[in-house]
């Protein structure tokens, strides 16, 4: 097999960090080549260099054996390199067809020649088995369809080297299967694919070879068929990782959180964002709310924690009706919240670490005296948390939180929330954007909370996390609970069907009582 792209000795430094250190990568024609690494390993930087978004400090790129300089995405397109970004770059109120031709429209006398474009798009979609409706609006089609549009965009531009940046992050299991098939079809037609990921199972399923990066360094390239998943993860992390979460048996306690008929109206009118949702979480239980992003999880959590409105229904925390309590009172009643967006809600990035660690408790008499902050207490407490939760930062308790890494910021939030000994811990995507080591750590902390008898409500989009960590799973679809299952009684595929709304096992009766029907 001949090599289409060769990147030799790529070095790229950002001020203070070496993002890529002498990295070598070769991509053969007709292969799926996975690029594996933790967050911060330098995968995206390397691909951005290939796509022309960054210029390397050192190193060369060869296309079909010829040295090329890629100064920008336009150069990349000319060389036949295309990229599907993790967050799609589509115009939502344009049709599929308009999005595909956007930027390369063919015109006659200044008028668009959409008919030619349509023929080509339809032909391409048939050739590669990417069925789409060219006249549908992007805002009306599913995420999986949107991804197809992105792929068609690359094909329409005659790209032969296709870069996928974490393409499965937003997909359901069924859509992932389809994507894998599409990718195999593409390489069968002679395209070459570079595929950024940190999910080992996907590599095992689809890729031919895999290049591993760690902390900006090149670790090695392996034939996927000859390599075990454990080996890959060790290459990626640099140590043995326990991929399975250890969960000792815990006797379920009393009901800590009892939600009855919770409804959150839509701001724009129409179907409520959260529609008559009822569930219970017991002490010693991790209940996971699974679902595709945007199905009402955020609104549900906002209503529970008091950040957002709760239009109907009752929220009972440990026997107290807290439906109308303020955020502060809910927190005092024993509710802790690891928020979805740690920068928006979880931290005051311009405060130092110690200030952030007391963000929920600065008002207690421990940390203030007649309105004056007790700095000794605050900084000693911060040191204590930093040591116990292994929060790493440049300047200890006085580090500007903004300068800390995402993983350590998240550890700080977890430390702060857990150390308040909550009755209920609401954790929303607590491992989003974190690397394997940090994920392992945070999962352990959640399990520990369950052991000390707290109730944990985990909202997650990651199916692996859902299956591994939870004791019970409820699936939310368009604001309604469509399934209430145990992780060992359900398959990933089944869960995917619930999440996409094509199956439901729970119907909400008029009184808000749950009734099993299947």
């Amino acid at each position: 097999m001949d090599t289409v792209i060769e990147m030799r000795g790529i070095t790229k430094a950002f001020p203070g960090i070496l993002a890529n250190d002498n990295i070598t990568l070769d991509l053969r024609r007709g292969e799926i080549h996975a690029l594996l690494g933790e967050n911060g390993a330098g995968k995206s930087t390397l691909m951005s260099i290939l796509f022309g978004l960054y210029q390397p400090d050192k190193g060369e790129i060869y296309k079909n054996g010829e040295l090329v300089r890629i100064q920008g995405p336009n150069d990349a397109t000319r060389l036949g390199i295309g990229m599907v970004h993790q967050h799609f770059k589509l115009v939502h109120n344009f049709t599929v067809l308009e999005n595909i031709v956007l930027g390369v429209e063919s015109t006659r006398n200044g008028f668009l020649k959409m008919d030619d474009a349509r023929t080509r798009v339809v032909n391409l979609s048939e050739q590669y088995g990417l069925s789409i409706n060219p006249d549908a609006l992007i805002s009306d089609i599913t995420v999986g369809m949107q991804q197809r549009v992105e792929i068609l965009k690359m094909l329409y531009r005659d790209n032969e080297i296709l870069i996928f940046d974490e393409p499965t992050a937003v997909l359901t299991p069924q859509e992932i299967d389809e994507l894998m098939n599409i990718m195999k079809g593409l390489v069968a037609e002679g395209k070459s694919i570079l595929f950024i990921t940190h999910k080992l199972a996907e590599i095992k399923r689809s890729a031919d070879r895999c290049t591993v990066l760690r902390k900006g360094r090149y670790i090695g390239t392996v034939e996927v068929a000859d390599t075990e998943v454990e080996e890959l993860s060790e290459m990626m992390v640099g140590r043995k990782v326990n991929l399975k979460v250890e969960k000792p048996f815990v006797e379920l306690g009393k009901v800590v959180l009892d939600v009855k008929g919770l409804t959150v109206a839509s701001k724009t009118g129409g179907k409520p964002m959260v529609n008559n949702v009822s569930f219970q979480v017991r002490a010693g239980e991790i209940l996971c709310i699974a679902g595709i992003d945007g199905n009402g999880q955020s609104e549900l959590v906002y209503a529970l924690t008091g950040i957002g409105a709760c239009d109907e229904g009752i929220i009972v925390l440990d026997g107290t009706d807290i439906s109308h309590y303020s955020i502060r009172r809910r927190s005092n009643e024993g509710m802790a919240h690891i928020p979805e967006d740690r920068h928006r809600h979880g931290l005051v990035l311009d405060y130092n670490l110690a200030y952030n660690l007391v963000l929920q408790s600065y008002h207690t008499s421990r940390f203030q005296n007649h309105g004056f902050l007790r700095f000794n207490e605050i900084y000693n407490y911060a040191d204590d948390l930093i040591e116990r939760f292994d929060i790493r930062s440049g300047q200890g308790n006085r580090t500007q939180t903004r300068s800390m890494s995402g993983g350590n910021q998240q550890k700080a939030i977890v430390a702060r929330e857990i150390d308040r000994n909550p009755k209920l811990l609401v954790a929303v995507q607590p491992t989003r954007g974190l690397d394997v080591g940090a994920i392992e750590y945070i999962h352990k902390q959640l399990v520990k909370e369950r052991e000390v008898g707290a109730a944990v409500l985990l909202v997650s989009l990651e199916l692996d996390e859902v299956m591994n960590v939870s004791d019970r799973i409820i699936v939310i679809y368009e604001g309604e609970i469509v399934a209430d299952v145990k992780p060992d009684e359900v398959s990933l595929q089944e869960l995917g069907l619930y999440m996409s709304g094509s199956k439901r096992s729970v119907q909400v009766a008029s009184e808000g009582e749950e009734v099993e029907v299947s």
Partner: protein
Amino acid sequence: MKIKRILSSSGGMNALSSLFAIILGLLAGFIILLVSNPSQAVAGFVTILTGGFSDMFNIGQVLYYSMPIIMTGLSVGFAGKTGLFNIGASGQFTFGMYAAVLAAVKCSFLPNPLRCAAAIIAGMLAGAIWGLIPGMLKALRNVHEVIACIMMNYIGMYLVNHLIRVTGIFDQLRNTTVRVPSGANMPSLGLNNFFSTKTAQGSIRPSSLGSGILIAIAACILLYIVLEKTKLGYELKSCGFNREAARYAGINENRGIMLSMAIAGGLSGLGGALVVLAGAGRGISVVDVLAGEGFQGIPVALLGLYNPIGILFSGILIAHLTQGGFLLQRLAFAPEIIDIIVAVIIYFSALALLFKNILSYIFRDKNESPQIEDDDEELEDDEASEADETNSLGSVEKEGELVLVESSLSENKTKDNNNETGGEPGDS
């Protein structure tokens, strides 16, 4: 090496950026002097720089002029720390002046010291009310505070002009308010005679300085303590830095907004009261012009980088330039030129924040890299994953340097001290 470390600390950087802004502003002022009157330019420039402290009288005048703009600067700066732009200092200042004069004139039943105190409190309250209204509109009705504040400026000015006539404190001859009875004025504590100069005839020419400046300084220190040492300051600052996070932490941000605006208004109002009670014979001119002190508070606050102690010094600096400009008249410069120069310097001072960013780029330390990464994020903001990736890369490197950083922790402490008193823009 040590100097560089201090400079690259955030406090040092703040002071340095303000200093840069001032120097550039002065250079621009010099060019204007050159253009308008080349032969006198150097002498004029020296006058601007040194006139303010050429003798005790001038120092006294500088401090006197600094008093109101320190107060409005504090007002703008305090609101700024809470994430609000109080452009309504002018209206609050005017209302404070009015209420102080009214109370001083009408409360004749009180003994003198109490009368003065009543006037000061009246000024503060009036300003606080004038600040609270936009605060309430913002908190309860989500009206942008800038719009509301601008409207309140005009309402305040016209209303005060009207009220002066209605409440019978109008001096028709001078077209201002009547003089505050001397007993109701604040005591000068001998400051006017200490900061004075002997005229050619041998008589003493006292400056206008009184005890008001002490109140202004006390206000700076008090606000510093409130912002840095108290629970209230912690809450207000978190509202300012990240309103969503403050809400998440159970802080009542609406209460914070109203309180912050009321305090900011009270500070401006107090500034107004200090001016009319200074005993320098100043009243409220009944003209359709917004009080300039309110707007001068904005550059004062910016130049002081919103730090109360910084604002104290930047207020004195701007007053110093104003006094220098006043003395410039002796050198046959048109008074407008003086205004332009002062305005140019103020204009450049507003760029202090820009210089801060440039400086932090120049003096960036390896372990301060994430700041630079944010720039990357802007370039590539649509690629969250990428930015995330580079961000955590920063940490990887940092962990390597952890030991190194910790060993210099003791120096970091001095850095932090510097940080706390930071933002002092070179007190000339």
